């Protein structure tokens, strides 16, 4: 398709959509009497509910069903796919990596975000300082991965370096290092990318909550001679606990679904694959529908309790 044709498609799609919605609303508006209410309700609710039903509910149930069937979904295999996930060596590596991601990323991103939020709070450059940390949040994970792949770029020690990380090693008199290839630390260097992206999120949320700590608490603590690190430990952290929990759980959820970074930076090679990436490979590369479905269901099962906990915490915050 040419650019012109694509833009025409764009216009057609939007015009079609707006047109249909307008006609539906117009008709719903015209129908008066008792039946009018029914028509109006249907017009407002049905499109969204239908899309959710067909596009989310049915596929989710179908995937659960497929997870108990074989690679081509021809016969029932019971728990075989799940058995594979928990016994096959490659899949165990995937699980180990996923666990590492989900534990390290939220903790470090939140810690860095928190420390930074406290440090720049009410300083002269606060706004600018915050924007610097927050910007990575706006860009794609593909872009973030490219930025860091460039930092990690490897060349033999005797050559001129173009990657900053290896140049630093060289300046320190060390040999250059294959950051993305050398196991087991390569997973940690991928996690760094996610921390780099998520710290800004943690910082923004926590900063808002630090500002909301009542003044009298801080004043009272000051009168008692509390300051510096003890103020942070005994006043700031306890006061923002609910927000801390929301940030931690939110980053865990995002991290569990991480896919773009692994795919862009290493392609899942060198034992860096994670659950969401393995799902993609099994489903759309190896065409093992059963195993792919089982991996998706596992992801679902892991995400579910965190999301529920997260939503409950957010509701608590709301109620305050």
């Amino acid at each position, binding site marked *: 398709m040419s650019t012109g044709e694509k833009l025409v498609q764009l216009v057609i799609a939007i015009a079609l959509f707006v047109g249909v919605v307008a006609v539906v609303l117009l008709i719903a508006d015209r129908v008066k009497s008792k039946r009018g209410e029914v028509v109006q309700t249907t017009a407002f609710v049905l499109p969204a509910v239908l899309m959710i039903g067909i596009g*989310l509910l049915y596929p989710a149930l179908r995937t659960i069903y497929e997870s108990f069937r074989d690679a081509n979904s021809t016969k029932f295999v019971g728990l075989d796919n799940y058995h594979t996930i928990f016994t096959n060596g490659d899949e165990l590596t995937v699980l180990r990596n996923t666990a590492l991601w989900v534990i390290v990323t939220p903790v470090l991103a939140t810690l860095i975000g928190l420390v930074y939020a406290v440090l720049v709070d009410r300083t002269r450059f606060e706004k600018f300082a915050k924007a610097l940390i927050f910007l990575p949040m706006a860009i794609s994970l593909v872009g973030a991965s490219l*930025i860091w792949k460039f930092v990690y770029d490897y060349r033999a020690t005797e050559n001129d370096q*173009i990657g*900053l990380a290896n140049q630093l090693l060289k300046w320190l008199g060390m040999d250059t290092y294959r950051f993305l290839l050398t196991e087991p630390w390569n997973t940690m260097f991928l996690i760094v990318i996610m921390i780099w992206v998520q710290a800004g999120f943690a910082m923004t949320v926590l900063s808002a909550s630090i500002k909301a700590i009542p003044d009298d608490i801080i004043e009272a603590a000051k009168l008692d001679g509390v300051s510096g690190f003890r103020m942070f430990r005994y006043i700031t952290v306890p006061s923002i606990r609910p927000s801390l929990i929301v940030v931690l759980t939110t980053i865990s959820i995002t991290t569990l679904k991480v896919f*773009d970074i692994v795919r862009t930076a290493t392609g899942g090679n060198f034992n860096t694959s994670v659950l969401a990436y393995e799902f993609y490979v099994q489903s759309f590369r190896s065409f093992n529908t059963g195993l792919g479905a089982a991996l*998706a269901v596992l992801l679902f099962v892991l995400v579910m309790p965190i999301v529920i906990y*997260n939503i409950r915490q957010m509701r608590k915050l709301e109620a305050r």
Partner: protein
Amino acid sequence: MTTTTPQVPAPAAVVGRQRPAEVAHDKLSNPWASLAAIVIAVLWTIPTVGLLISSFRPQADVQASGWWTWFTNPTVTLDNYHAVLTGSDTNLATYFVNSIVITLPAVIIPISLATMAAYAFAWMKFPGRDLLFVAVFAMQIVPIQVTMIPLLKLYVNPPFGLPQLAGASAPGGGFYTIWLSHSIFALPLAIYLLHNFMKEVPAELIEAARVDGAGHVRIFLRIMLPLMTPAIAAFAIFQFLWVWNDLLVALVFGGGSLDVSPLTVRLAELSGTRDQDWHLLAAGAFVSLIVPLIVFLAGQRYFVRGLLAGSVKG
């Protein structure tokens, strides 16, 4: 936005704070604190700066020396951008158009449908309303991965003789599957958030309009939409960035046809096949980053609020 309470500092808390000078003194009296802040800020900025500088350096320089040598030998060129945008082997201009074509409907469609549904859940009375709303709310916890294979099958082999949506012969050249998928995945969250907003509109306002003989459609268009503008803007920006930055949905539902792939898919591919051509990758990365950065900076206020609320999505 009720779910974002922690994001919005109470204005009262800011009033009556210590004087800025006194605070600045507090912070600066501890050089270690300042140093730590500067170290973090530098660590967070340097990687991007490095790639940005590289995108403006001549190809030979990028491949021969580190970007930090640019400061002693500053040569600036736009060749990389020219090459990556129009070069026949990279041709990012095409993918840039694809990203735009994908993103606009994928923002407009779910937001319109969600606003309507949210209105119904908030202000219309019908049997099973609360149950249905809880069901929609609960769909937020479904990771999109769980839906992908069956959804793709529906697009390729639709039931009841409906037209096929995937593939090169599909209407719209295959864009419809991406638009639809993004719209579907956005709905539960959008409905939930907008519903929370609409609930906060005073009931008297709606009832007064009803007494005056206004139907739901009129109330929705005349009263609700204007009141909902900030909420809709917040979600629109969130959804825009989500779709523009998305890789997975485009990969799976773009059906491997590069004709409809967005920038992210193309960049990810280049990162694999041209992984030493850093002059191109650097320029390419910034071609893809510029739009979200502009949208983000323009709508920062809204974006930050939508962010926490939207964090469980995906």
